[in-house]
């Protein structure tokens, strides 16, 4: 019995080791290359530590242009996708529609469509309908088609936990539709809206497949990286990868840390509330007995 448990533990342990090794080793190799003086992107032979590739990267004006474009596109996508996602989430959760399931399927369909299709169709549509050539604008629109759906899903999952009578109460106390929305509903949705903003920006910032077909001759950072990687590979790209990875790790750690703090705060408050209720129970309802 004990030995079979041990065997299971060893199997589980080595599986976890292999799984995370599979996930992280390639990234680690890629990172090491960024610091190798060798002008070929390789781990060995190790020709000495250097910051040279980071410096080279920083000298590349096209990289900076691409980064600027990425920021413009990312912010624009956020400005389009979050309001659309919110509207779609409200529509699906608030109305008792017979065609709800159909609408839902339609709304999530951009997520389930290959990214290149969204890029191609947006590119063709704007060319044909408005004679607008592929560029940053078409990239923004193409990305927003599916990023809006992600925002919708995020917001919906929060709305579903909302107690609607709070809105009725506010309405009953004299608030207008807009006041109810801005004073009661929106504050409740705030966490989901923040995560939608973060998600939308990240999705946009990382997007390659959709953007490639929609953007014409402009470049966002992923397009720049893609072009570079297809031509000749310089360890400067590894340097860029290291920056990306470091930022991602920081983001993930902050995200997890905040979640942990939130959970701890919640537990703390619950404990306090319990203590308070206990204290109230010891002296039952003061001043009211004479009523």
């Amino acid at each position, binding site marked *: 019995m004990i030995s079979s448990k041990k065997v299971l533990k060893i199997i589980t342990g080595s599986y976890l080791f292999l799984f995370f090794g*599979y996930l992280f080793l*390639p990234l680690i190799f890629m990172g090491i290359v960024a610091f190798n003086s060798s002008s*070929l992107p390789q781990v*060995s032979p190790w020709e000495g530590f250097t910051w040279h590739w980071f410096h080279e990267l920083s000298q590349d004006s096209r990289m900076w242009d691409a980064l600027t474009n990425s920021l413009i596109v990312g912010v624009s996508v956020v400005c389009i996708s979050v309001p659309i996602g919110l509207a779609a989430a409200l529509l699906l959760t608030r109305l008792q529609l017979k065609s709800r399931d159909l609408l839902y*399927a339609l709304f999530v369909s951009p997520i389930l469509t290959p990214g290149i299709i969204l890029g191609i169709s947006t590119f063709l549509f704007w060319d044909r309908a408005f004679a607008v050539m592929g560029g940053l604008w078409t990239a923004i629109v193409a990305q927003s088609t599916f990023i809006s759906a992600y925002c919708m899903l995020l917001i919906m999952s929060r709305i579903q936990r909302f107690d609607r009578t709070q809105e009725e109460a506010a309405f009953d106390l004299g608030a207008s539709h807009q006041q109810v929305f801005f004073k009661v509903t929106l504050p409740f949705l705030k966490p989901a809206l923040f995560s939608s903003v973060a998600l939308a920006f990240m999705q946009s910032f990382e997007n390659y497949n959709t953007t490639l077909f929609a953007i014409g001759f402009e470049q966002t950072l992923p397009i720049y*990286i*893609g072009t570079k*990687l297809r031509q000749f590979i310089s360890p400067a790209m590894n340097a860029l990868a290291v920056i*990306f990875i470091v930022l991602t790790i920081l983001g993930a750690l902050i995200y997890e840390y905040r979640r942990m703090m939130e959970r701890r705060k919640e537990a703390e408050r619950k404990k306090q509330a319990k203590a308070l209720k206990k204290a109230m129970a010891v002296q039952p309802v003061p001043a009211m007995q004479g009523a």
Partner: protein
Amino acid sequence: MRKVWNQAKHEFGPIGLAYVLIAVSVWMLVMVVAPQLIMLDFSLHPLLFPDEIGGPKDVWTLQNYEILFSNRLHMIIFLKTIWSSLLVTVFALVICYPISYYIAKVARGASVGWLMVGLIIPYWINELLRLFAWQIILADSGILNQAMLWIGIISEPLNFRAGNGAVILGMAYAYVLFMVFPLYNALESLDRNQVDAARDLGASWFRIHRRIVIPHAKPGIAIGCIMTFMLGAGTIAAPQLLGSPSSFWFTELIYTNFETANWNLGAAYATILALLCLVFMAIMLAVFRVSLKELSR
């Protein structure tokens, strides 16, 4: 219809209703449906010179679609795309199922948080960079060749990127994590007591998973497979970065058509790709008897 309208007015107020309707209809009509229709329209027209457009040659035709079936090379590429996407999907399911189960039901306390961070970090890293990592591993002077040379398995560096293997390896690596999160979400809602009860009754490890865990994870399996297949079939980054000039992929075929300004053929192939994903999704949903609603969990 009237009733829905009245309810909507009641629900959102005039300004709110205007916002919801405008936002959703712009999204659906201008950004999703109309572009798809335009793409379909392009695909159903022959490639013409600008002065021929509107002329007698400008007719509806299936000739762009017929090319796929008449061009043997294109057909092979198309089938290869299906085959390798399926392979990647199965691979992802096999290696992600245990980790999802482990995080959702076995691991406890702080280790759950750390394992999640361990999944989120590679998941958040740009797919291009994830593919780039394999470019470095599989390069002629890459770490894999060097390691094998050093061990002595080979005497000459192998060209891993000659065939399709590198692309498939890269795809598997880049999209594997799209399987983890749907699976994890589905498994998390499984009541641990069910598993314990089954174990108490003497059910074997295999039986517990077949009878209890997997049926519960069905929605996650379906959604995960749909996502992974769609990303695999639709990726252009993987073949661009890891493919060789001799190995062409369906997405690259589409891209080349746009580069050479044959938008009509490109649109037709893009439509075929979209249909392929749609068919795969329909099959998965039917086989696992789940609805798309599971996506929102």
